[in-house]
């Protein structure tokens, strides 16, 4: 039973994240939306691996999710570096283009 509830949570998180990524121009909010999206998909996978409180869950989706978490932090760090660079050099770059 809990797997169904958390499966629904995962689906809800994916929907929320997609909506905010589509309707918000702010870079940091979009990076947050990407993180929420990934956690939502991970929640669906973890819920799919669950098979009752007295049966051990499927380990393969767990390994996928662990890999996903580490890749996600790497992607987030890279995106934040890009966003910071845009924020700082964005205006200067435009000025140079005008000259």
């Amino acid at each position, binding site marked *: *039973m*809990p*797997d169904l*509830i*958390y499966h*629904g949570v*995962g*689906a809800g*998180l*994916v*929907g*929320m*994240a*997609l*909506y*905010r990524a*589509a*309707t*918000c*121009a*702010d870079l*940091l*909010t979009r990076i*947050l*939306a990407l*993180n*929420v999206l990934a*956690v939502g998909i*991970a929640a669906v996978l*973890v*819920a*799919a*691996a*669950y*098979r009752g*409180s007295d049966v*051990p869950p*499927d*380990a*393969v989706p*767990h*390994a996928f*999710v*662990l*890999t996903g*978490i*580490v*890749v*996600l*932090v*790497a992607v*987030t*760090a*890279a995106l*934040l*570096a*890009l*966003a*910071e660079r845009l*924020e700082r050099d964005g205006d200067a770059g435009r000025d140079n283009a005008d000259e």
Partner: protein
Amino acid sequence: MMTVFDVMLAATILWTAWTALTAPDRTAAIAAFLVFGLFVGLSWVRLGAPDVAMAEAAIGSGLTGALLLRASRGMTPPAPTRVTAPHRAAAVITAAGVAGVLAWAVLVLPEAAVVYDPLVDANIGDSGVSNPVTAVLLNFRAWDTLLELVVLLAALLLVAALRPIRAARMADLGPLYPPFLRIMAPLSIFLSAHLLWLGTSDPGGAFQAGAVLCGGLLALFFGGTLKTDGPDVMPLWALAVMGVVVFVGAGLLAEALTGTLLEYPDGADKAWILTIESALTLSIGATLLLLFSGLRQGGARP
């Protein structure tokens, strides 16, 4: 009784996620994201996935939150975005559609998730470890984990290339910080080694251990003991690269010994896995620290 708990936890997760995505203030949004990650971790403990929950709490919530806070400092506050009605309607339809299909998928495919499980059960005895998640990550699907380390290194190179800018100024943390550090830094090393060793039989492993080690390194970094500029950065770089080097070396050596890439010699699996995991732990700790601190070579830019 547990259903009440599940429903409340589910509602909290959705609410904190929505706060993180819509709060007008950046710090509030990031704080909500941190809390969100911890509650998601709690829900995964409930679903019997403590390995994943630990990684989510330490890396997905804690370290990502630190990265976000660090980046948000230099960014202007978000301006409200003007969204036209058709744009908003399209976003609602897409988001609701994808979420609806995801929710519906599990109801029509109830037995879809049991494909790999019998294979893991049948081979766990040969894997050298008794924690099935570690067995999958470091033995059955070691190739995926090797490539994951390469992804981390690629991200680190990108961050290093993009961010050789001004030195981050550290706030003075007061007279209580050095005594705190004298306890925390060794403790993080102990805890990290403990999690690494535990990972062979119980929840834990290289990623969780690496995240804890990164916490200790970050504490040293904030205290000014550990510097990530000048010549001091070279050992950290060496550690960051070491994970991939050791993993590839082990894969090739295994190829020479057994004829198959990443197929460890019979009976010695545990020693191989622990050797690789130890290198991974140090490497992940150093990589995560460098991702956070950014990298500065002296005089690269004004």
